[in-house]
């Protein structure tokens, strides 16, 4: 695995993969949008409001999925001290926070017409709000240190502790049966949702996933460039500090 996780190799591979991944993400999101707004039927109970599902559910899946990616990368970074894993964890956090925000906002906009309330302190909603704060806490923590590697390590511990929230989110609708409906796609015995709604939902979810992968690659590339920039600047300032003024350079001394 280390062979694929080398930063130079990552830059090379991502240069080749990035345009295709981005194009496919755009295509899937556009298709999903058309299907969700024009092709998918209105619900016999919820009417047209059911269309909120096609942004709410993919965003909710991504909120948990991105956290799992972030925690997995954090574990690899902690255990094997792998620089790419650290960079991946840091790059994933703002994206996960974004998806969680979409989930919370669209859920609120769905709750008001269907449940008669924008918000309720039910187990599912509360655990997703906790997830949002975990992302924000992680971002604040990793940026709170002058030494980025110390920040990443502190953040990794927080990310791993927060993993306990993922099964709580997933099973909250079964353990505490309140307003939020239980799972209708990823459940034992198969999906209970109609195929005409399932397909647009899955295409939209795949579009969200590829969009995330594309953005993750872009952010990791940006972070690798930034790390090189930091190293070059540090080397330049050390050279300046070390070299006494007006001392002639020794032959062969590094520039």
């Amino acid at each position: 695995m280390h062979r694929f996780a080398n930063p130079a190799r990552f830059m090379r591979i991502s240069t080749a993969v990035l345009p295709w991944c981005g194009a496919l993400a755009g295509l899937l999101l556009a298709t999903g949008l058309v299907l969700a707004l024009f092709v998918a039927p209105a619900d016999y109970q919820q009417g047209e409001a059911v269309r909120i599902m096609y942004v709410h559910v993919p965003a909710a899946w991504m909120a948990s999925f991105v956290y799992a990616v972030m925690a997995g990368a954090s574990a690899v970074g902690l255990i094997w001290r792998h620089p790419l894993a650290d960079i991946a964890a840091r790059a994933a956090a703002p994206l996960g926070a974004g998806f969680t925000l979409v989930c919370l906002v669209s859920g609120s906009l769905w709750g008001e017409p269907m449940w008669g309330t924008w918000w309720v302190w039910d187990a599912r909603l509360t655990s997703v709000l906790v997830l949002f704060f975990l992302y924000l806490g992680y971002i604040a923590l990793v940026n709170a240190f002058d030494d980025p590697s110390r920040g990443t390590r502190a953040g990794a511990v927080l990310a791993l502790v927060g993993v306990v929230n993922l099964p709580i989110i997933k099973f909250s609708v079964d353990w505490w049966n309140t307003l939020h409906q239980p799972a209708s796609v990823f459940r034992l015995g198969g999906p209970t949702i109609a195929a005409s709604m399932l397909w647009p939902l899955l295409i939209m979810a795949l579009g969200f996933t590829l969009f995330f992968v594309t953005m993750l690659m872009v952010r990791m590339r940006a972070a690798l460039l930034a790390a090189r920039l930091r190293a070059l600047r540090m080397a330049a300032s050390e050279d300046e500090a070390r070299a006494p003024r007006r001392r002639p350079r020794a032959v062969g001394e590094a520039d």
Partner: protein
Amino acid sequence: MDWVAHFLAMGGYARFVWPAYGAAFAVLLWMLVDSVGSYRKARRELDALERRSR
């Protein structure tokens, strides 16, 4: 144009459906602008630094 108005009305749920799609669009757009922007910024600064040291 009747079908457009009918479509936009979303069966009376327009004020819930469109803000939900708008929020998703805004956040995804922010992800795109922020990610690509940070890459371009790092690239630009790195190129400038490497040009100067040459």
